[in-house]
């Protein structure tokens, strides 16, 4: 052990050995220390564990909130659907109805006069 080795970038086994003996105690019981740490591990685990019913209650709270939201959205959609009238089909809208004006319009061999077209429209109303 000399001054040159003070600059050494490698560990000094001799110094390390005596320091280790100085820091270790003959009273040290590693097994007891490990047991102590593991007891704290168990305590921490027990404290972190949430009872099952609390988990289920948490799920239930979330489930109720989702169901309420779904009911509100569903009600809104249903309400809108009931208020809107069914659209008329294209054929029904174009089908001729009874009336002299219409009969004259569909049976005439010549192009219809504008007054006949107007009359058929007025009759349909």
């Amino acid at each position, binding site marked *: *052990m*000399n*001054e040159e*080795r*003070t*600059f050494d*970038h490698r*560990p*000094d*086994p*001799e*110094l*390390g*050995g*005596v*320091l*280790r*003996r*100085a*820091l*270790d*105690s*003959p*009273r*040290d019981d*590693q097994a007891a*220390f*490990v047991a*102590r*740490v*593991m007891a*704290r*591990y*168990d305590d*921490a685990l027990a404290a972190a564990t949430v009872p099952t019913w609390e988990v289920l209650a948490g799920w239930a709270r979330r489930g109720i909130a989702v169901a309420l939201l779904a009911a509100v959205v569903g009600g809104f959609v249903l309400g809108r659907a009931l208020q809107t009238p069914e659209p008329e089909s294209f054929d029904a809208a174009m089908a001729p109805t009874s009336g002299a004006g219409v009969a004259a319009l569909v049976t005439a061999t010549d192009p219809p006069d504008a007054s006949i077209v107007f009359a058929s429209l007025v009759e349909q109303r």
Partner: protein
Amino acid sequence: MPPDTPSQPPQGAARIAGEAELVARTLAGERAAFGELVERYAPQARRVARAVLGDADEADDAAQDGFLSALVKLGQYDARRPFGPWLMRIVANAATDRRRRRQVRRVEPLDPGLVGGGPRPDADAVRSELGERLRAALAELPPRRRTAVVLFDVEGYSHAEIAGMLGIPEGTVRSEVFHARRRLRALLADWKGA
């Protein structure tokens, strides 16, 4: 392992992989895996905490805090790197936090209780005397200096690893180890010459 060699376990790829597996098993909730990590690193963690704090009982509390804190942070551990430096950084931080909380400005004596009581053979008595002198010398060093020399010469970590653990530049670690060695070697030389 021989007593005069650094106590840090070898950090080969196989060891890193083995410890990564222990970490993964711990994260999966396997109690025994965490127990194995604690068992493997308990002596080293206790020494490092003692180097920081001086007091043996308080150091054990800090080492325990370190292990539990590591457990909480285990998800942050990079499995490609050695586990030891990561854990020792947490232990050193836990011990430093305790020292700060203590807020004692005086020189901290290392616990005389580190030496076991009762009658002992002469060889042990001589060794005990050296141990007491070393503890006194360590206690005179600034906490960061004694932590650095213990991590380097006792635990076998590199300057770079110690820099990461203590959150200081690598050059500062070299300087701290240099000054600590100079003081401790002078003491050892006196003791040998006596």
